[in-house]
């Protein structure tokens, strides 16, 4: 091929890479651009108050931040023990038929669209929760957390079981030759040497739980309040962005969704940096 074509192709490849990387910067710039008047006006503090009441000038997004925090942490709390249990089953206890079947099911779960989880939950889980609490609509923090836990479980299980599988074989052989039972191997050898993988999986799952829109939008109830219990409705930052219908592009309401956007952006960046610190991407890329 002619040298000129080689040069041209290289330029094209470089341009594509720059374009892709600049999308991240563009997203950040747009969030800042649309919320900037608020920072300049000095009334940014008003957004970090407790009241969302556009008619009376209250644009506090703290309820949404608390809602996101509670729903996501609860989902993680539910998913973590199940995740570790299932990964241990797949990688240690049941390497035979059942373990392989479980892994297939988990891989299948990664292909289920979130909107379908939400749809089924409305007609299956929500009435059930309503019966249990005997009050409210059943669209509450607990319903959303349970479905969210189900959504992030595949991420947790697949990643932890890969971390378990990558424990050096001579460690396991050493444990075997000392007469360790499978449970002892898991508790004293596999978990201590795969702890970075476990933490990475949980951080990754936290990112997914915070970033998910559809489940909290469909079944968390979207109430503008700080939830006081499991049966209270709540609104997440993501749902707040999805719900906004502002025709006036200059209004503080409209700008406030970009503040929510900025918070989510910073959170994502933080997660990525933590994962880097844990060496997650090295594990991922060497797979």
């Amino acid at each position, binding site marked *: 091929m002619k040298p000129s074509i080689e040069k041209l*192709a290289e330029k094209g490849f470089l341009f594509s890479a720059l374009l892709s990387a600049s999308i991240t910067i563009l997203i950040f710039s747009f969030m800042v*651009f649309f919320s900037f008047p608020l920072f300049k006006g000095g009334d940014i503090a008003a957004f970090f108050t407790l009241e969302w009441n556009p008619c009376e000038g209250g644009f506090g997004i703290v309820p949404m931040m608390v809602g996101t925090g509670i729903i996501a942490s609860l989902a993680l709390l539910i998913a973590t023990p199940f995740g570790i249990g299932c990964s241990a089953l797949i990688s240690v206890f049941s390497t035979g038929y059942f373990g392989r079947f479980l892994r297939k099911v988990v891989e299948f779960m990664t292909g289920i669209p979130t909107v379908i989880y939400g749809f*089924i939950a409305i007609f299956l889980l929500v009435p059930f929760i309503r019966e249990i609490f005997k009050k409210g609509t059943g669209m509450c923090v607990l319903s959303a957390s349970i479905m969210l836990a189900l959504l992030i479980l595949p991420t947790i299980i697949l990643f932890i079981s890969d971390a378990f599988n990558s424990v050096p074989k001579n460690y396991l052989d050493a444990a075997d030759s000392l007469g360790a039972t499978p449970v002892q191997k898991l508790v004293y050898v596999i978990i201590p040497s795969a702890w970075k993988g476990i933490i990475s999986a949980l951080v990754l799952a936290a990112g997914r739980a915070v970033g998910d829109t559809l489940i909290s939008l469909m079944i968390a109830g979207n109430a503008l309040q700080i939830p006081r219990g499991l049966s209270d409705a709540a609104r997440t930052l993501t749902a707040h962005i999805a719900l906004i219908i502002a025709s006036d592009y200059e209004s503080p309401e409209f700008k406030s969704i970009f503040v929510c956007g900025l918070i989510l952006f910073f959170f994502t960046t933080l997660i990525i940096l933590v994962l880097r610190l844990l060496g997650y991407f090295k594990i991922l890329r060497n797979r």
Partner: protein
Amino acid sequence: MNRFVEYQIKLFCWISGVVLIGAIGILLAFLFNKGISSLNLSLIFGETRLLDGLLLKTEVVDGLFPAIIGTLLLIITSIIWAIPIGVAAGIYLAEYCNIKWKPVFNLMLDVLAGIPSILVGLFGFAVSVFLHKHLSEHIYPCFLISSLALACLVLPYIIRTTEQSLVNLPFSIKTTGLALGASRLQNILFILIPYNLSRIISGIILAIGRCAEDTAVIMLTGVVAMAGIPNSLLSQYEALPFYIFYISSDYNSQEELMKGFGACIILLSICVFLFALSHILKRRAVMRFTTHT
């Protein structure tokens, strides 16, 4: 550790496995139990005759046909934006990028891959507002904006799989072409990419699956409940995942609800098929790869 604790731990693991499979089983059984009866041609075409609907002679009003076509068009358009840029960027990162700049690209792309999809939707929405104000009064959230935003969403997947498929090739494959006098570009285009093509395609299919299932991006960038088949890039459109979301909050009759269940089964089948295909291709690529080294 005494026997009892060991037994408890093991029991817990088995219970969590069984609970997980049980939960998914119940969800799917519920979905299919409710939705299977509504799966027929009138779900898709409503009252319209099959051929007339397919050939766009008459507009399908009360069926899923416009939503399915909307989703398909959306997937195709987004992928057309994303493939060339994604593959080219992947090639750059794997073959050309120097050590100094690589961490910067990696950080940007990792953040992009981790950004919640609603933010990508908000970005698309902001772009359309910006263009509306500064370029033309006629630009509103539309099909074009949606497809571009979805392309941004899936770009990191395509870039990463392309990069990985090139980086992980054995040294002998990477250098044989060069030793025989091929130029750098020839080596990439005619040897490295064809060698691991199925891995790249698996990444693209995964991206297609993400386009098909994503709801958060499109709901901010122009999807509506009733629009028919889009007739231009600047018109609004319908899509299957949004239809499901809309029905869940806004159904008027039991019949409409049943159509929602039917739509769920259709979307689920599409997505699971795509993910399975991607998985098989990836596995085949890995197997071929290990037999050669």
